[in-house]
C-alpha cells in the first residue's frame, strides 16, 4: 500500500535529455523532426521535478528518487546531472526503434519503464518539455498507468497517502488533492533546483543506470517510433516575416519617436 509505509517516500521522476537549447535548433531535412544527434543535456524543466522529489523524500525521512528517461543512443549525460543532484538510480530506455516516437508512444514507453520501479508512491514530470512542449505526456502516462493526476503544480506536499498540490489556474491557483500513487506535473518555480556538489558529481558516476530495450518492456516495435506514429509532417514552410521596422539609436530624444508612433495610431 503506497504511503502506508510511514516515513518512506519513493518518487519516480521522468527526465528528458534534450539538445542544448542555447544551440540553434534545426529540423532534419528528411524526417522534418528536431535533430537530436549531438550531446544531450538534462532538460532544465525537469530539474524542478528532481529537486521537488529530493525534498519530498527528505521530508518523509526515507525512500529514494528514481529517474526514468527515454533517449536515443544510450545517452546518459542528462541523467548523470540529475543523479549528481541526489537521485539514487535511473532507468533508461534506449532503442533504435524509438526514433520518431510521438507523445503518445513516448508515454506508453515511459509508463512501461515506470512499472519496473517497485513501490513508486509518486511520479513527477514537468508540465512541458523544452524541445517538444506538447505538454500531454504526463497526463498520458497517468492514463496508461491507470492513475489519477494533477498538472501545473506550483507547490506539492504529502499528507499520509494523499498528495496535496497547489495547481496554477487562469485566475490564481486551486488546492487539489489526490490519493497516492499519482502523477503530478510541475511548473518552473515549484522549488529552486540545487546545483550538484563536487561530491554529488563524483558519486553520480557509480550510481546504477538500468538500460533497457523496448522488448524488455514487453512493447512491440510496431507501436512506437516511426512505425507507431500516426501523424506525419507533410511540409515545413517559412512563415511570413514581419516587415523590417525603423531602428534608431537613442540620442536622448528617442522617446519622442515613441510618442509620435503612438499618436499616429491614435493610442494617445
Amino acid at each position: 500500500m503506497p504511503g502506508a509505509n510511514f516515513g518512506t517516500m519513493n518518487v519516480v521522476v521522468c527526465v528528458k535529455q534534450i539538445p542544448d537549447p542555447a544551440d540553434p535548433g534545426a529540423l532534419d531535412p528528411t524526417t522534418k523532426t528536431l535533430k537530436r544527434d549531438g550531446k544531450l543535456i538534462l532538460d532544465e524543466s525537469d530539474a524542478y521535478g528532481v529537486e521537488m522529489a529530493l525534498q519530498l523524500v527528505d521530508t518523509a525521512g526515507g525512500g529514494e528518487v528514481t529517474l526514468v528517461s527515454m533517449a536515443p543512443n544510450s545517452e546518459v549525460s542528462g541523467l548523470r546531472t540529475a543523479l549528481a543532484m541526489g537521485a539514487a538510480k535511473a532507468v533508461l530506455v534506449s532503442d533504435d526503434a524509438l526514433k520518431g516516437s510521438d507523445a503518445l508512444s513516448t508515454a506508453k514507453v515511459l509508463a512501461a519503464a515506470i512499472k519496473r520501479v517497485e513501490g513508486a508512491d509518486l511520479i513527477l514530470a514537468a508540465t512541458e518539455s523544452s524541445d517538444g512542449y506538447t505538454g500531454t505526456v504526463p497526463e498520458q502516462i497517468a492514463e496508461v498507468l491507470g492513475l489519477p493526476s494533477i498538472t501545473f503544480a506550483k507547490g506539492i506536499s504529502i499528507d499520509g497517502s494523499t498528495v496535496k498540490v497547489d495547481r496554477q489556474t487562469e485566475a490564481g491557483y486551486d488546492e487539489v488533492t489526490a490519493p497516492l500513487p499519482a502523477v503530478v506535473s510541475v511548473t518552473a518555480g515549484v522549488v529552486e533546483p540545487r546545483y550538484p556538489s563536487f561530491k554529488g558529481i563524483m558519486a553520480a558516476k557509480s550510481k546504477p543506470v538500468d538500460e533497457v530495450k523496448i522488448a524488455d518492456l514487453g512493447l512491440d516495435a510496431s507501436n512506437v517510433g516511426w512505425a507507431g506514429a500516426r501523424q506525419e509532417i507533410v511540409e515545413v514552410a517559412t512563415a511570413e516575416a514581419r516587415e523590417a521596422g525603423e531602428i534608431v539609436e537613442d540620442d536622448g530624444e528617442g522617446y519622442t519617436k515613441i510618442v509620435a508612433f503612438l499618436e499616429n495610431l491614435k493610442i494617445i
Partner: protein
Amino acid sequence: MAVSKIWVFAEATNGKVANITLEMLAKARELAGTVEAVYGGADADAVAAELGAHGATTVHATGDLGGALAGVPVGAAIAAAVDAGNGPDAIFLGTTYDGRDVAGRLSVRLDAPVITNVVDIAERDGSLVGIEPVFGGTQNVITKFTSDKTQIFLIRPKSFAAEEAGGAPAAVAALAVPEVGSTAGATIVNRHVEEKTGPSLDDAAVVVAGGRGMGDAEKYQLVEDLAKLLHAAPGASRAIVDAGWVPYSYQVGQTGKVVKPTVYIAAGISGATQHLVGMKGSKHIIAINKDPEAPIFSVADLGIVGDVHKVMPKLIEALQGR
C-alpha cells in the same frame, strides 16, 4: 468537406464562455457542417445561449464533476461517445490547463495521437492539417493524421478571431461519464483567486512588457507606470517571472500568455524565440533595448537602441504632461 462533425471542448468561468472556446467555434464552423460543444460542468444551461450564438447546435454536457479535475471524467465521457459511434470526426481543445488534461486522457483512451501547439487548421487533400510554429515562429510545421481515428487538435489561444454566427441557444444533451476506476480522485478542495485591477493581457489594446533589462524588481515600476498611462496591461518575460519580480500571470510567451494587442511595447526584453511566439502576432511592436543586436528588433516596427532607465522616464514624463 474533410470532416463533417467537429466537437469543441468548451470552458467557462461563472457562466461566461472562455475566449479560446469562441475562437475555436469560429474556426470549426469554417471546416465542418456540424459543430457541437462538449462541456464539463453543472451550468450547461447558462452557457448554451452563448455557445449557440457562436455556432454550436448542441452542447454535450457531463453535468457537475463534483470538484474533480476535468481531464479524467471529460476525457472518458468523450471516449465513450466515440466508442458508441456518436463521436465527432475531429475534436478541438484549447492549450489551457484543462484542455491539455482532457486531450491527454482522451488520446490514450482512443489510442489516437494529438497534434499540439496548433495556431491554424486547414483542409488539404481531403483531410485536416494542423499548423504549428517552430523556431520562434520563423517556420511553420504542417502535420496531418495518418490513421482514421478521431482527430485531436490542441489549439493555442488567440489563433482565430471569435465571431458570432447568430444561432439559437445550443440544445443541452447529457453526456454520460463512465466509471473511471483507479484514475479518479484528483479533487479541487479550495480555490484561490488573485485580485487584479486594470485591463487584462487578453483584452488590452496596449501591452507594456518588461524583461531582465529592467534591472531589478523595483525598476519594473517603470513598466507599471507606463502601462497605467496608456491604459495598458503590464506583461513580462519569463526571466523576471522566474526571478520572482512579478507573478506568473504576467508572463507572455510559449509557456505564458499569447497576446495580440494593437501595440506591444517590449522594454529590456531580448526576444528569445519562446517570448516571440507569444507576442509576434501583435499589430505593432515597439522595442527598447540597449543591444542593437537583440533579436527583439527583428520583429519591431519601431526600435529604440537605448537604456530603458533613460528612455522610459522621459516617455512617462512626456505622457504625463498630456
